[in-house]
């Protein structure tokens, strides 16, 4: 920026953090409007439900990633951990034949346990989060293949398992809008995470850690314990994603998962959460995840060639972060 820049921002109003959410939200609206105008098939109940369904797994993963990223950390293991949790559910339900709630509980506990391990390695052993979760990513990928015998585990013996994601409790009350349960679970997880972030000590320390970890330590807070807590909670949320994807596919696919962490991180970043920590919102992440799936779905409906879909998604990620940088510059 040189002295030729317009003197427009002389005493511009203070732009609050809400602005970025507004920006992401208006981006989402703009996309929806553009696609609706471009194709009559876009704004159909069935298609909107398909978009929401496509958002559910990535949305839940992104929420987990948001928690960790706000602490200034990163979790590369969310994708393969999701698979691991799905496989655990498969073992409990299909191999052991136990009742469905135990399978769900098992998946969530497996996620929490893995988060505890990651958090402990990061907080106690001081291994940087990038490395620690990269290691966990591979460990979990391998364990999923080992436990499953490298074959998908099908849930054919657990009737109703695929209703967790695909069924619609809402549809029984309002038959016109059969919102899949998976989507309602996403919203429930989002509400829970937003509550924890905004209203509980765990949430407060999540922001505080990302803002200035040393200051938190000097304030007499048991930094390690809370940090492990954040990773554990993120792990538990990933466990929910594991149940969702297993239910949707009616199987635990052990080879799946790697690469999903990047989509989750993309949703977080588009939603305005800073990778350097200290700031972020669940609502933003939800919008970020929706932008990704609206984009993918809309471009498909418009029969845009797949090569170009990828290019456009990349552009949106860079644009979103650039918008965030502009926002900071004007702050």
């Amino acid at each position, binding site marked *: 920026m040189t002295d030729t820049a317009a003197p427009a921002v002389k005493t511009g109003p203070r732009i609050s953090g809400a602005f970025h959410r507004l920006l992401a939200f208006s981006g989402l609206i703009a996309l929806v409007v553009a696609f609706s105008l471009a194709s009559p098939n876009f704004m159909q109940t069935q298609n909107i439900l398909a978009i929401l369904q496509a958002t559910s797994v990535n949305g839940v993963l992104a929420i987990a990633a948001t928690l960790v990223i706000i602490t200034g950390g990163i979790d590369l293991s969310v994708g393969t951990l999701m698979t691991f949790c799905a496989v655990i559910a498969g073992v409990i339900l299909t191999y052991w034949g136990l009742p469905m709630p135990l399978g769900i509980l098992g998946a969530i506990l497996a996620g929490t346990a893995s988060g505890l391990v990651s958090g402990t390695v990061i907080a106690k052993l001081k291994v940087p989060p990038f490395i620690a979760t990269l290691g966990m990513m591979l460990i979990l990928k391998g364990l999923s293949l080992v436990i499953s015998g490298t074959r998908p585990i099908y849930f054919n013996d657990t009737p109703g398992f695929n209703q967790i994601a695909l069924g619609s409790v809402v549809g029984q009350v309002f038959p016109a809008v059969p919102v899949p349960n998976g989507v309602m679970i996403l919203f429930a997880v989002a509400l829970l995470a937003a509550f924890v972030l905004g209203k509980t000590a765990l949430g407060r320390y999540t922001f505080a850690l990302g803002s200035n970890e*040393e200051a938190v330590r000097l304030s007499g807070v048991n930094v390690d314990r809370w940090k492990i807590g954040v990773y554990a909670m993120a792990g538990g949320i990933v466990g929910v994603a594991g149940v969702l994807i297993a239910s949707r596919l009616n199987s635990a696919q052990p080879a799946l998962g790697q690469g999903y962490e990047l989509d989750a991180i993309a949703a977080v970043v588009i939603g305005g959460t800073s990778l350097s920590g200290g700031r972020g919102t669940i609502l933003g992440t939800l919008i970020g995840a929706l932008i990704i799936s609206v984009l993918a779905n809309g471009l498909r409906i418009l029969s845009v060639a797949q090569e170009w879909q990828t290019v456009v998604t990349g552009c949106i990620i860079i644009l979103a972060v650039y918008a965030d940088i502009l926002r900071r510059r004007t702050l």
Partner: protein
Amino acid sequence: MSAEVGSGAPGPLVEMTDIDKSFPGVRALAKARFELLPGEVHALMGENGAGKSTLMKILSGVYSRDGGTVLLNGQPVEITSPRQAQDLGIGIIHQELALMRDLTAAQNIFIGREPRRFGILDEGRLNRDAAAIFASMNLRLDPTFKVETLTIAKQQMVEIAKALSYRSRVLIMDEPTAALNDAEIAELFAIINRLKAEGVGIVYISHKMDEIKRIADRVTIMRDGEYVGTVRAADTPIETIISMMVGRTLSAETLAIPNTAAAPVALEVKNLNRGREIRDVSFSVRRGEILGFAGLMGAGRTEVARAIFGADRRESGEVWVHGKRVGIASPKDAVAAGIGYLSEDRKHFGLAIGLDVRNNIALASLPRFTGPGGVLDEAGMQKEAVAYIRTLAIKTPSDTQEARLLSGGNQQKVVIAKWLLRDCDILIFDEPTRGIDVGAKSEIYKLLNGLAAEGKAIIVISSELPEVLRLSHRIAVMCEGRLTGILPGGASQEEIMRLATLREPAMQVRHAG
């Protein structure tokens, strides 16, 4: 509450004796000693590296001691964590602000002990409690503001509020006024006096002699990790304290100011503007002249320097060097025009602390040492580096010593050498002696005088008035982005302060941020 220091108890609040502490390769404390009475302000002084902060970090549970005893209210204690120190009624305000920028003021104050109802944070009570503390400090500040939107001074006040919120009986302040202006310092001292009256013991670490005289009851002086002595502040001359700190007597050097009025103008700045930070600033510096820049924190001095140097965007304004207008869009252009900027924060902006002295000196001039095929001429670099180490008297075992291992004053000299090697004849120094020992300060002053005598044009930005007065041929004073006046070198402190607080009558005072 039983662990808290009883306020009515006679005898010292704190007695630290024979404290030893070593870090790998460094002996930080050797038989250090300190005593604090209730209702006393006890200054702790010493040059950088004397061990003041280390000693206080031991008292506040950040470090553990290797040897010695700590008595709190007459009872031996083992303080193993900041949390435990807080529970014992020992609060500390750290030198580097230890705040969480993305949290609000209230959230910062109560971090670690948020009021909760049924496990849910009670934000309303949090803000009310914080507002009550601010009110008791006579501080107008909205507790729901995020810390990052506050000025440094306000952030400092939040730190103090945080320490007060623990109802500490012992309060350690490590350079609390480093970022405060006079009005804010007065507020702080009022708070300190109130705490004193309540029987709180205050440890006051500072380099500023005038503050020590104003606020401290006793002064303990440390040198090289050892206890030197404790004196009464009221009846000990400043010179005595300084000589105890440095271990020798410093002669008060006065400097003969040569007349530079006839010299050609080296740098001229016309109508520089940027938002509310820089408002229509114009001035010039002649060859051989030192132009001091005085003003309160946030007056816009650093902003002017960065705008001239091209480090920040400017909205309008011209820069003329040696009678020619130069377009400066980035630091690269400024350096090409012969302008060097030595920033306030050397470690962040001026010095590559991981590189050695030789490479730091050559850093801005690498093209000159680049031979065919891009290979660097190490021998040439070494020759120049060694020459500057000699002429600037940089204390370093060799030119291959890592810059981070040098003392603050010598790091500053390395940065100066870098710009001299780059043929910069206009040098802008932003707080050149911040964080530098008393002894090294006078060396930097001599160096600046020498550079001016060689015909360099020099701008010195400093928040320490005695420094500005001692160095400058002329003194430019800024207030709220405007240049409120340029005074001759012999101006009085009162006159400078008048210009530094000369606000526009119509200017409404707006909230920080």
